[in-house]
């Protein structure tokens, strides 16, 4: 069997010292990926569909209170806990190092959601509708998910696919900065940097070597592709 290899290993670097917690990435993600629109009740029940959430933490005691933000999306783990537990391969690893999710393969055991330490997998508890004229906003590149299936951040795989097709036509590989997911594109503070970690010269790879780097829940050994940057003498801010 031919071994599947790829010149890409997609990753993201999020600089927490830059993040202002504005939430633009959350909105961009929702708009880009046909993420279901939730009713107020749905969110109150803890069934919101956001692929990307901004965790907010208060640090310190009044009056010296600071707030810290932590954007969390699928960490695209290299040793992902969600993958081996799926009985039907709906959750799988693709050659570019992404955790793929095949919506029409998913039977909805929700085992992956339980086993994800980052709790970033969302389940379609409700059937979702896009009332007119919101349906015009639906992206034709992405499946609209039915109720009963799991979904999660894909690093905007449709954008990666498109860039790959263009690059293949021109007989080259994707250039650094040519493709980025909606969240990174939207971030006004430029806290998110997306790129090919397999290319040591890419901006993301260079940032990922920063001494400020850390992974979420590093002790679990999931080897995430999302790198966070924090500190550098300003950790009290």
């Amino acid at each position, binding site marked *: 069997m031919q071994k599947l290899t790829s010149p890409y290993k997609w990753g993201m670097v999020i600089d927490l010292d830059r993040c202002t917690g504005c939430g633009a990435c959350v909105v961009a993600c929702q708009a880009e990926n046909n993420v279901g629109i939730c009713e107020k009740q*749905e969110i109150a*029940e*803890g*069934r*919101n569909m956001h692929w990307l*959430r901004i*965790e*907010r*933490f208060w640090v310190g005691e009044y009056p010296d209170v600071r707030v810290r933000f*932590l954007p*969390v999306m699928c960490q695209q783990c290299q040793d992902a*806990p969600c993958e*081996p*537990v*799926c*009985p*039907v*391969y709906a959750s799988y690893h693709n050659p570019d190092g992404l955790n793929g999710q095949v919506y029409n*393969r*998913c*039977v*909805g*055991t*929700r*085992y992956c*959601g*339980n*086993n994800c*330490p*980052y*709790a970033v997998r*969302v*389940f*379609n*508890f*409700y*059937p979702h509708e896009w009332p007119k004229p919101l349906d015009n906003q639906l992206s034709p590149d992405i499946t609209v998910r*039915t*109720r*009963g*299936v*799991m979904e999660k951040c894909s690093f905007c795989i449709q954008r990666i696919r498109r860039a790959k097709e263009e690059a293949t036509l021109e007989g080259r590989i994707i250039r650094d900065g040519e493709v980025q997911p909606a969240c990174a594109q939207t971030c006004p503070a430029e806290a998110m940097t997306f790129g090919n970690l397999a290319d040591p010269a890419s901006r993301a790879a260079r940032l990922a070597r920063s001494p400020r780097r850390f992974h979420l*829940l590093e002790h*679990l050994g*999931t080897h995430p592709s999302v790198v966070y940057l924090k500190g550098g003498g300003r950790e009290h801010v």
Partner: protein
Amino acid sequence: MSDPPGTTKSVSQTNDELLSSLRPPTLAWYLLAFFLGAVVACGLAAFTWQMMNGMYVTGKNRPVMWGFYITGFVFWVGLSHSGTMVSSILRLSRANWRRPILRAAEAMTVFCITVAGLFPLIHLGRNWTFFYMIPYPNQRGLWPNFRSPLLWDMTAITSYIIGSSLFLYLGMLPDLAIARDRSTGWRHKMYTFLAMGWRGSAREWSVYHKASTLMAALIIPVAVSVHSIVAWDFAVTVVPGWHSTIFPPYFVIGAILSGVAAVITLMIIIRKIFHLEEYLTPLHFDNMGKLLLVISLLWTYAYFVEVQITWYAHEPIEWEVFSYLSSRYTPQLLIMLVGNSLLPIIFLCFRKMRRSIGVMLLLSLWVNVAMFIERFLIIVPTLSHKNMPFAWGSYSPSLVEILVNLAALAGFALLFTLFAKFFPIMAISDVRELEVREAKVPMGRTRLPSIAGKE
């Protein structure tokens, strides 16, 4: 019943008594079957409602993706260990007191595992695509994922359903032949078909004895593996509170605990309904009580070890799960500890208690309530407080989930009611075998113990 002690009752009299459950159903039986059927219908309606609308009709949410359904699943798999425990282990250890209860226990195994097997299908987000999990030939050449514990589950449960059905059927063959010889009409035809031409020749008996001993030995590893695999569903994850190496043996012990308790409950019910006081004596309850005591001690040890190691390690996320469990679910935790450890250990030490039907009924029911809570406390608090504190949540079951779980209980009872009406619920040939062995044989003017007294 007027026989002098020490003599064997006439064959037909024993058969009559033991087959009394097969007499035409009374009004009370119809009422019971109707009531149970109605509850099952409610559960089916609830399930249909869930399938038509979506999983939002359950109480599950983002961090707590499993709830009452998986609790029910683990609980019923646990109950299904009754038959294997009582029947095979006692058969292999040649405990004669097993004989009057083994059929009920074996039937219980089959029905419990059948009910349990439905839960994973009920809890799917898209139930109608359940066959994706079966390794069937398809165009894409795609296999199910053999690394997934859910697939191991399915394999183990299918094996256990097949194995325990065969075990039940094999043990029933001679009794089906007795029923065949004493029935008429369509029942006669049914028993004729099922008895597969059993005539009771010496050769048949010898093959039968070999086969049932072999079957008893083979079914034990299957039973142990089934609940170990169910435990792996939790133990192989990276979820704090689930990822624990003690889970497989701990789950097996819990399963046997609830299984033995359920057999005791069932013995009491059968004894009462079919007036089998003569066959299910306080001696049987005494022995079952001792068994329950041992298993309860084992369970207590396993639970103590699990909590104590976590407490000693004090790994922050794991300890958070336990703290949350004990603060949010304090009453449930107490009911569980009292029912699984405290009461059985205190009461079952005394012969008087073990021989009291009332005490045994209360204890056995409480153990099973406690075991359901135990399953719940393993699944839900853990998922509520996982690694990311920002994404913590909580869970309470919805009406739909409660109805489906009640329907599972009623469905099990209904299957059992039907089984008891159409099949011999007492293992006639085993009981009679014991009677013959124990009977004294006339020898001249005296009566001497039979030489066939030993197995």
